[in-house]
């Protein structure tokens, strides 16, 4: 039976843009790295002094912190959901960390266990509401994150109190050879776990299946609800851990300190090629996307515009990035 459907187009002299577009769509992670590189090059062209060990260390540190909630966000998006509560969970565990540690060493394990439990619980709640009950993920995770935020205030009465333990802080902040911050050690633990989950376990395979076609996955014997709820739970736990690292980085933590990470992580993940529709995406893309977000902010500071102009520029660049990657399909093909 002749089948020519799969013949690949031999003459490749199509116009440059459609080729570029195809490249962007198929190599999203690589594209994110390229954009990051472009942003960095622009930064140091504008300000050659910007290329220094301090800056590089800082960029690594912030990228690692952002890449952790982005990991959870990636899983949730792949499974077809969306998690807006990562910011609130991060803030909550950050506040909890400083509140419990009170600047003394030795509370790490307690804090870790409680934080992960909180993350898992909130993630579970998100999962149940979005998946089992079937409410719109964006709205429900936002509503739940509001409640998480209120709990922070009730716990601390809104007062900034306590401090991360110096030892814990130093495991995040101190620099190897004056450049590489110690936080990479945490990254070396978390990243492989995430890669393992997504690429080398049936959980990952099922996650993609569920996100792509939940109905088919179910009839194929996948426990769809379980997988989706699990993705929210993992997202909650990862965010919880990121909140602890954030607290170590900031030393002190007020309520709502990391709320912005909800959007930040979402955009990072999207720039990394994961789509809202679910079923596709990769964690390497999300890490690269995190790097783009950090370098973008760095570039804007280098340009040193006034706050309103900075906002306008930020918007313009974000839209540009979205145009590059995330245009929906046209109705007419």
């Amino acid at each position, binding site marked *: 039976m002749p089948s020519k459907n799969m013949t690949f187009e031999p003459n490749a002299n199509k116009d440059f843009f459609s080729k570029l577009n195809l490249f962007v769509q198929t190599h999203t992670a690589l594209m994110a790295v390229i954009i990051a590189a472009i942003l960095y090059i622009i930064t140091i062209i504008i300000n050659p002094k910007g290329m220094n060990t301090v800056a590089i260390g800082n960029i690594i540190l912030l990228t690692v912190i952002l890449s952790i909630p982005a990991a959870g966000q990636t899983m949730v998006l792949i499974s077809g959901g969306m998690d807006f509560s990562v910011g609130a969970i991060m803030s909550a565990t950050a506040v909890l960390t400083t509140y419990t540690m009170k600047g003394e060493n030795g509370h790490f394990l307690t804090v870790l266990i409680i934080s992960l439990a909180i993350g898992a619980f909130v993630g579970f709640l998100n999962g149940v*509401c979005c998946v089992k*009950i*079937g*409410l*719109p993920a*964006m*709205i*429900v995770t*936002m*509503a*739940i994150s*509001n*409640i998480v935020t*209120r*709990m922070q*205030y*009730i716990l601390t*009465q*809104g007062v900034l109190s306590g401090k991360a333990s110096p030892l814990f802080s130093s495991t995040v902040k101190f620099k190897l050879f004056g450049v590489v911050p110690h936080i990479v050690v945490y990254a070396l633990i978390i990243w492989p776990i995430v890669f393992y989950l997504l690429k080398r376990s049936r959980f990952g395979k099922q996650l993609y299946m569920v996100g792509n076609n939940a109905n088919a996955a179910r009839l194929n014997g996948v426990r769809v609800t379980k997988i989706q709820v699990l993705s929210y739970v993992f997202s909650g736990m990862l965010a919880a851990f990121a909140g602890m690292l954030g607290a170590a980085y900031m030393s002190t933590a007020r309520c709502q300190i990391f709320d912005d990470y909800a*959007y930040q992580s*979402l*955009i990072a993940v*999207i720039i990394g090629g994961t789509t*809202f529709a679910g079923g596709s995406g990769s964690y390497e893309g999300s890490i690269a996307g995190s790097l783009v977000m950090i370098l973008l902010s760095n570039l804007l500071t280098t340009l040193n515009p006034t*706050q*309103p*102009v*900075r*906002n*306008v520029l*930020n*918007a*313009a660049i*974000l*839209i540009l990035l*979205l*145009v590059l990657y*995330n*245009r*929906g*399909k*046209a*109705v*007419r093909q």
Partner: protein
Amino acid sequence: MKESFARFRRKPAFTGCMLFLVVLILNIGIQGWSTCLSNGVSVGNILSFFQPSALKSIFMTNLPFILVTVGQALLLLVGQMDVSIGVQIALVNVICIMVPQEWGVPVWVGWIIAMLAAFGISALCGACCAVLRLPALLASYALTYLVNGINVLIMNVPQGSVPKAYWKPYQSTLFGLIGGKDAPQFLKFLDYIPVPALVLAAVLLIWYFISRRPFGKHIYAVGTSQRNAFAAGISPVKVQMKAFLIKGFFVGVAGICLTLMSASGNPLQCEEYGIKSLSAAIIGGMGWGGWGSISCGVFGGGFLVLIQNTVYYFFTLLSKIFVGFSVTSYWQNFVSDIIIFGGLLMTIVTAKEQRKTLQQGLKAQFRRGEKYAK
């Protein structure tokens, strides 16, 4: 009667309406009780919710939010959304104040320019979401930064004022408008009709006429399936752009109402309306794309507004019953957020109704099929 109620139960606006009514009754009760405790029991106090001044202040202060929620509902209908809707109101407000102040033109000219700005920014958002087909959530989030920046560039600190001749009518009741104490007393009942309520009614009436045109059908088609609408000869891009422009109209009116309420300008306000209006519309019964109606927006917006009011009186009441109980805002916010979450959970009820409808529909068909076969 029973029939029409059953039909109503299957409508998307059902939960929104029920939630709204429940909170309304709660509000009337708690507010009345709270007032009784301070001023002694009397019919007037029990129904203190209906005092002209109380009614007026609810409408006056919350009209912008409700209008914006209606706009958001319209966007949800065509399968879009706009979280920058909040800063857009601030933009309108800023222009309303700054244009007359800086250029010395009459106030109403400023308003027209502000309206045009609302259309312009909505068209921009529409261009991003409908024409360029960017994910609406992220594109409009990016626009939040843009509009915010523009607002501060136009007006760096809160300032300005509106002549009393403009804001006074907005902040009065229909009775006040026709002359207040000088008006004939038999028209006193008009005191229960705040002017902002009339504005709301007018805007909804305009919408009613728009929705009865073919466009009113097209928004559902486009929201449910762009491809199928396109196949039927409807341009999804055009319909979505139109929806964005109509939303621009809502935002413009909302911004002017806000200006009349505060009689001044503030570049940094209402930002959270973007997300809040989205939750409100969902609580009101909207789905993503093609499911719901404008009334969902009205009910959802009203629900959130009344929650806030009810919680205020609830805590006041507590502090009156338990002497020495002092209210910290954490608990107030906590309680209202829990209630909002509860409201969201309640939307499952509509989902259930819809499922039931589907089943009933199928059952009827099936029976008919049996008859047909014989």
